[in-house]
């Protein structure tokens, strides 16, 4: 008798429940029976403006005054609910900006012809920067960034130069607010991922373990979940045959995923104590389902999301309760985010996350209302600045993605580069980027006004008195107008602007 994938899904659900009972700590068990069924966020306290600014800082690449205004007007929970359904938010201006890029809609074969000039890579990075800077669908973009970094692919590796575009557009974006299982399947079928982690060239008689290992260690259940080297070998055997149409295959759909039974390692496999019957491509499908619904994946993904959106070291309690939501909603990202936003841990975490370089860079562009003209040369120059700051999207070469810890990024050269970038930005010394400080400060008459107007514009709130008086003192010395760019640069360079 062969077990179909549908049967197996049922089985793996049972497996998940069984494992939860068998291995979870008592505190988790106590929470098991009822987790709130969240279909939409209940109203959040409206009078608390700092909670509103805090929430927007975490779920946008920098809240602009217009966004803060809108959230105040319609209420924070309604604002977040709208953001959770990005297709409901018109974003024509951003879509139109994508028209300048020629390679996004191309097939891999078409991109391949332009690869020598580096065009597909540069365009995908530029498109990402522009979307993060301009899109009205900010929460969506933060999740695209999160998952893209979770399923990290080094764009400079071989075929990834032409394939990562499809990973972004067809695997990550369609699933960024969906079910984790669907996202995992999309990633596992993504040619860029299979090339990046050498799955595409893994053949049955001596499988390559790169993808099989990282699939468990980094994408799903985590290194501490107790899998063994034997599990890695078995997963790697099962996944042989998951490959990509290569240049030498002379087939029409170059760069597409396909299963090649000729290089598959046949026979049953045993993964995490579960027997996977011999079944070609279905073996891998079953393993993905098994991993997506594994209790360790709920813990691992919940912890990572909590690190991104709450603090560098979230408490085990909040991770446990989020993992419950993850499990009970079958890995539903929207449900998860609703629970996260309502948690006390989130509400009390304002200002605790250090901006990664990309967070800093995009937020500086957003709050200064910078206009960006990205021809090819400007695009490259802008990427150079981002490179100096340390985080060009898709260029982290190991498979674990850019770190998200203050300890990693708060370095001497890191701070200096931020101070310098802020100054260059507000003095219009970055090619292709323009900031109009006169416009931003047109209603400010005094030194105090300038500092306050720019603080509200950049930080969403006034600076605390001690920092404010340092800048007011500077603004008052000499010619106010001449001091404005330096004041603006100092706010972007301040410790306050480094946190989100």
């Amino acid at each position, binding site marked *: 008798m062969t077990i179909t994938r549908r049967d197996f899904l049922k089985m793996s659900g049972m497996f998940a429940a069984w494992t939860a009972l068998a291995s979870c700590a008592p505190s988790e068990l106590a929470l098991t029976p009822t987790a709130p069924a969240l279909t939409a966020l209940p109203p959040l306290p409206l009078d608390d403006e700092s909670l509103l600014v805090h929430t927007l800082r975490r779920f946008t690449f920098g809240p602009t005054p217009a966004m803060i205004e809108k959230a105040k007007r319609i209420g924070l929970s309604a604002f977040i609910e709208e953001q959770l359904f990005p297709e409901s938010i018109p974003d024509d201006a951003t879509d139109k900006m994508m028209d300048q890029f020629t390679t996004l809609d191309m097939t891999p074969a078409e991109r391949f012809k332009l690869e020598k000039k580096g065009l597909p890579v540069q365009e995908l990075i530029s498109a990402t920067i522009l979307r993060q800077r301009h899109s009205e669908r900010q929460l969506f973009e933060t999740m695209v960034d999160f998952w893209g970094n979770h399923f990290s692919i080094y764009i400079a590796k071989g075929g990834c130069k032409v394939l990562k575009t499809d990973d972004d557009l067809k695997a990550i974006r369609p699933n960024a607010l969906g079910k984790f299982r669907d996202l995992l399947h999309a990633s596992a079928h993504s040619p860029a991922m299979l090339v990046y*982690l*050498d799955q595409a*060239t*893994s*053949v*049955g*008689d*001596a*499988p*390559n*373990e*790169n993808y099989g*290992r990282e699939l468990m*260690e980094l994408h799903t259940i985590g*290194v501490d979940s107790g899998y063994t*080297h034997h599990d*890695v070998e078995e997963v790697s055997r099962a996944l042989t045959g998951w490959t990509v149409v290569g240049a030498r295959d002379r087939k029409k759909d170059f760069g597409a995923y396909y299963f090649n039974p000729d290089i598959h390692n046949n026979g049953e496999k045993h993964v995490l104590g579960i027997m996977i019957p011999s079944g070609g491509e279905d073996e891998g499908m079953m393993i993905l389902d098994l991993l997506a619904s594994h209790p360790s994946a709920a813990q691992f993904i919940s912890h990572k999301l909590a690190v991104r959106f709450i603090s560098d070291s979230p408490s085990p309690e909040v991770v446990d309760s989020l993992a419950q939501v993850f499990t009970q909603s079958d890995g539903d990202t929207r449900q998860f985010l609703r629970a996260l936003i309502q948690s006390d841990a989130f509400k009390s975490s304002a200002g605790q996350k*250090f901006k990664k370089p990309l967070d800093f860079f995009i937020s500086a562009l957003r709050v200064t209302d910078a206009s960006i003209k990205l021809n090819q040369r400007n695009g490259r120059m802008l990427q150079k600045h981002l490179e*100096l700051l*340390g985080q060009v999207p898709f260029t982290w*070469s*190991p498979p*674990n993605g850019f770190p998200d810890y*203050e*300890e*990693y*990024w*708060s*370095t*001497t*050269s*890191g*701070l*200096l*580069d931020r*101070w*310098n970038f802020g*100054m*260059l930005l507000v*003095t219009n010394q970055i090619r292709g980027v323009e900031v109009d400080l006169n416009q931003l400060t047109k209603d400010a008459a005094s030194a105090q006004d300038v500092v306050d107007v720019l603080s509200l514009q950049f930080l969403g709130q006034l600076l*605390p008195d*001690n*920092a404010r008086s*340092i*800048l007011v003192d*500077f603004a008052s*010395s000499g010619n106010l107008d001449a*001091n404005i*760019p*330096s004041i603006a*640069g*100092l706010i972007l*360079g*301040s*410790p*306050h602007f*480094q946190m989100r």
Partner: protein
Amino acid sequence: MNTQLSRRDFLKLAGSFAVAPALPTWMPRMAFAPQGVEPLGDIIVVVFQRGGMDGISAVIPHGDSHYYENRSALAIPEPEDGSDKTGIDLDGFFGLHPSLRPLKDLWDEKTLAIVHAVGSPDPTHSHFDAMDYMERGTPGEKSIPTGWIGRHLQTAPWQNESPFRAIGMGGVMQAALRGPIPVTTLKSISDFHLQGDVSQLTEIRARLESLYNLGSSLDADAVETFNAVNILDKIDVNNYTPSGSAAYPETEFGMAMKQVAQIAKAEIGLEVACVDIGGWDTHNQQGQLEGELPTLLDEFSSGLASLYHDLGDRAKRVTIVTMSEFGRRVKENASDGTDHGHGNCMFVLGGGVNGGQVYGQWPGLAPENLFDGIDLNITTDYRDVLGEVVEKRLKNPALSEVFPTYADWKNLGVVRE
């Protein structure tokens, strides 16, 4: 010294010592050390090969027939005199990959030693855990938050308030450097200065210093940054010409090594430099004599040799140590690559090194001698190598604090007292 000192405490302490008058800020060890005592050990340069170097391709055990049985596509041919398509013989049993040619002279001069079948004893095949353990210096144990170099700096019998006492090249702080002693991270000396409206730079800087003196978690890093800017402003970077036969590769690694030489020569208090070279995770099409791994080995060896030659006489007081989180599987895979393994080799280079020897006991590559039946066994704990360097070359006797979970020390004799 109290080893529980927090970084904040240390900064205060360092501040209170910093009153020694009329000394350049970058010669602070004079302010700590009693007159007439020479507290300094070597400068140590730690090169981390991230991704897991294939140690049996770098230093080939050509005398072990099982090497050739396991590596039908990737094995480096047995040394033949005058050929650049074979291994370079070292001692009749081991040989260098031909792309490591720049290291052969240093071997012959006896300034380069190799340790083989060495590594961290924890069996993990995870890059990230393996690197983490290696850099903490506590394999299998994640509860100690500092790195081995951080603890060395903390427990050394002298102190040194130079912001260039410890540097992390590449702009990030290597985990080995974690600890209470501040570290300066650096991508490029020439870019390390404050920008902005030139007529207002002094004012801008003063206000930034004030903004970073209000109690944020970033204050200590900012202080380090300002101190580092002060010093680097005085170094002429544009007219730097490496000495000797140094020809640094034009890569991130090569540039990092070159800047280490500049900082060492500038005499601004350098004790420790960490440099990374990535790309060693060769699962697929690793390359035998040409390709991914040979290219990396070439870059790696010319970077090491250039730094050594560039330092000239100073190399007598510099020790360069290399490591990688694990070696690679003895048997190659079917995509002409190698998967994650266990034992590896390390290079130790410097004036105080007993070079021209391969240290360690070779466990053999016969199936029954492999770790878990698949990997090169580890017969030398990497801490034996580092411990010896810390004690004999860096002159820090506090090994039980630098490597707190290790007790089973073995004397290798890889460096001189």
